């Protein structure tokens, strides 16, 4: 945690969108450094970023388990009730022979979010325990590269659209899993907003 309290050293960064080289110095609270040529955000000041991101990641792991274990949605039509879980859609698609589609949905709604949460816990743990974990920066690289494929919020909008479409046919019973998934969506969106990539990369540098 010490590295966060010290005044950060200025460092070089090259703009990811136009490749102009910048030197990033001290940023005030809430400040952001933008590229002077194309306007891309280069670096943002984040207060207590490690502690906040870790808290969110642990919350996310708990919510993820709840969302996957508890019933997700119930469907009541002409006296029959069907409960479904988060994976039910994937299994049904697989059963219909759409294995490619099933894999894509499984990856974007379950596997990648799980990777994001577990990966962030793994990457942030050394900040608290002072131990060295192997392949830490490679894990963080995987987390960053898989981030666009984490589509919990899109999935949630999909749930809303599907429910509106079915609302005239049948009664929908939201389950515990749905509420957990809703919270998980906000947690996942905020983890990346709270983490400071430069801090993690430069902290990992010392392990090498």
């Amino acid at each position, binding site marked *: 945690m010490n590295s966060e309290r010290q005044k950060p050293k200025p460092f070089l960064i090259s703009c990811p969108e136009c490749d102009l080289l910048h030197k990033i110095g001290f940023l005030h609270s809430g400040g952001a450094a933008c590229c002077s040529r*194309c306007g891309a955000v280069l670096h943002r000041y984040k207060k207590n970023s490690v502690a906040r991101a870790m808290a969110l990641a642990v919350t996310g792991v708990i919510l993820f388990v709840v969302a996957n274990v508890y019933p997700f949605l119930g469907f009541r039509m002409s006296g029959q009730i069907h409960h479904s879980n988060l994976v039910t859609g994937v299994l049904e698609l697989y059963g219909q022979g*759409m294995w490619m589609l099933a894999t894509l949905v499984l990856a974007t709604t379950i596997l990648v979010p799980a990777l994001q949460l577990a990966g962030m816990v793994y990457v942030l743990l050394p900040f608290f325990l002072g131990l060295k974990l192997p392949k830490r*920066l490679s894990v963080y690289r995987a987390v960053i590269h898989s981030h*666009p494929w984490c589509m919990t919020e899109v999935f949630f909008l*999909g*749930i809303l659209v599907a429910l509106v479409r079915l609302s005239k046919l049948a009664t929908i019973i939201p389950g515990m899993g749905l509420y957990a998934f809703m919270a998980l969506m906000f947690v996942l969106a905020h983890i990346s907003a709270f983490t400071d*990539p430069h801090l993690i*990369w430069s902290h990992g540098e010392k392990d090498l």
Partner: protein
Amino acid sequence: MKISPPDNRKPYICCHSCRLVCRRSQKTSGLKMRCPRCGAMLHYRRRYSVHRTWALIFAAYIFYIPANVLPITNVVSLGKKQSDTIISGVFYFLDTGMWPIALVIFVASILVPLFKLIILTGLLISVRKRSTRYLRQRTLLYRLTETVGRWSMLDIFVVTILVALVRLGTIASVEAGPAAIFFAAVVVSTMFAVSSFDPRLMWDAAERCHDGRKK
């Protein structure tokens, strides 16, 4: 056809993963280098950026047609089978008076993929022509396609949920249609196309032009 920029113009190279700025020397310019911090391969620009992006865009244009023509869901209720395409789904919501949802589906599954393809094609042509105009606006367009693209997965997820919920055998059940696979292919290939396009290629043209004027 020369597309990639001269490889040894700048004295530094930036890691694509951890964005560490590394010094490059003439000695190592031809060798494969790894980032000393995160271990990723170092490239001056994303590799084969223009070729890969063109290939993925062409694939997406081709997939876009069956995705819109073929049925995306087959609803079986009381023995009758009804097929819906993406557009007929939009009209279903319009007819029942739920126009906000019709608008969401129309934007997410018809407009966004099409605009993404058109924008990327335009950006690629501008790189090919080494255009130096509207650089900031073009970078902004690229950033827009990067953030907005994932929302076109919406229709796939709607189908998944319908399939998961409505399974009462012959009374009512929903099957995913063939268009769902093509539509997913459009979304996936445009997402890869966006990530393989390197916006710095546009600025390289401007720098080349600027350097030329100085001399």
